[in-house]
């Protein structure tokens, strides 16, 4: 089995197949919108992969291994036919797609998956994360409005940095990709220790207690590090950290709020796009006041 785009630098790649993932069409619409606008401004062409289906997320791989490979395999096959590298914005989709393409290297697994999806897989696409694509052209970002004085806690979560061999785009303990970007945009990335601590993943419905506890720790650490906001690259992390702040305040008795934004929104802001264009006014924990105080909104 061939991988259509296994080598070649990302920096030279102009067009990508785009895998938004389910969340970016609903709860994380602002991620989708800001990603598309920022990429357009950077001259990156995103062509949404036609007919993509859900990657199965943690529910598939928690309960059925084969399904967890087969669902992304269908998407990988489609992307392979398009012939462009497949860029995912959601860290979960990225992780599942990347692990699936790894598993498909195994002949037995590939045969089994071909039976399940009822199609032969001739070639698949190289899977990359949007953060990697932006990082590949870091020096070429035309910053129009530097995010001066904005202190950002870059939060990477689990799925971009673990497991090391199959997925990781950066160091698992102290990654720097997003920090580099934020610095380039004129903001100050804060040093903090919870960049890759888990937010509770897909448990907000079934075990909200766990999610609240883990998010509380992360938010408290970001605040302590002096961050004005947290930047994320994953809709699940965003949803967990942003939507439950009121409950966290109630449960743990602290009153601070930490806005959580997508890195693409910060990127767009620095590229001169507006708060409204970037849907920065759609978060439950409103980032606009802090952005205004820095003259950025």
């Amino acid at each position, binding site marked *: 089995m061939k991988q259509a785009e296994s080598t070649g630098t990302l920096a030279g790649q102009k067009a990508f197949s785009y895998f938004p993932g389910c969340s970016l069409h609903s709860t*994380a*619409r602002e991620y989708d919108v800001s990603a598309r606008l920022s990429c357009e401004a950077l001259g990156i062409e995103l062509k949404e992969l036609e007919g993509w289906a859900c990657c199965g997320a943690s*529910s598939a791989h928690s309960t*059925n*291994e084969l399904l967890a490979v087969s*669902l992304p395999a269908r998407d990988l096959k489609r992307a392979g036919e398009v012939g462009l590298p497949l860029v995912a914005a959601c860290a979960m989709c990225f992780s599942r797609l990347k692990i699936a393409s790894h598993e498909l290297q195994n002949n037995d697994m590939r045969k089994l998956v071909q039976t*399940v999806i009822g199609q032969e897989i001739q070639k698949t696409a190289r899977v990359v994360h949007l953060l990697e694509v932006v990082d590949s052209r870091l020096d070429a970002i035309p910053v129009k409005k530097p995010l001066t004085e904005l202190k950002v806690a870059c939060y990477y979560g689990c799925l971009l940095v673990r497991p090391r061999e199959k997925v990781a785009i950066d160091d698992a303990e102290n990654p720097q990709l997003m920090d580099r970007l934020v610095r380039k945009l004129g903001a100050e990335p804060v040093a903090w220790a919870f960049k890759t601590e888990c937010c509770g993943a897909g448990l907000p419905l079934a*075990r909200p207690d766990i999610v609240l506890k883990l998010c509380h720790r992360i938010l408290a650490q970001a605040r302590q590090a002096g961050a004005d906001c947290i930047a994320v690259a994953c809709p699940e992390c965003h949803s967990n950290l942003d939507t439950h702040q009121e409950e966290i305040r109630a449960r743990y008795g602290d009153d601070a709020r930490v806005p959580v934004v997508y890195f693409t929104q910060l990127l767009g802001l620095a590229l001169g796009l507006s708060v409204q264009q970037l849907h920065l006014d*759609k978060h439950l924990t409103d980032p606009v006041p802090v952005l205004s105080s820095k003259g950025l909104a």
Partner: protein
Amino acid sequence: MQTVETITPLPQSRLSGYVQKHSGQNPLRCYQCGKCNAGCPVAYAMDLGPRQVMRAVQLGLKDHVLSSNTIWVCLQCQVCSARCPMEIDIARVMESLRLLAILEGYPVPEKDIELFHRIFLEVVRRHGRLHELELGAMYNVRSGHLTANAGLLPQLLSRGKLSVLPTTIRDARAVREIFARAEAESRKAPAAES
């Protein structure tokens, strides 16, 4: 989790054989340093920590492991695997154990988590993609937590973050077939006897 009064260690058990075969990880490499437990963000909520799961696998205590809530609470955040000094992919072991528990029909101690996964996949099977409103509503009804996260609903709807109607992809039937065949094939998978 089953309470164990006295244990009968079965070091050469089929359980550790299954784990090795299915996950590619040799549980006998673990020397119980405890770094996994120490770093696990949800160890506090588990009846067995990841270290104890590894130990139980070493000793072949199958019921003990497969009826624990650990394998369901595990977030697959991979911190344990990333930091293990013996380079054991512990998260992968957890996954293997959970799949074995499902396959062998062990009672699930974390019913809500299992229900969530089931509904999630039902929604995806139906539309080819997730529909979050449907997931939330079905979960609340079937779990009995009728008001869970309901307070967030107006805020999410007002911000246009929840679509009322699902998007169904054009060849959703193909996805449904993938589900059917994946389930059929998985049942053929060999289980660990003990």
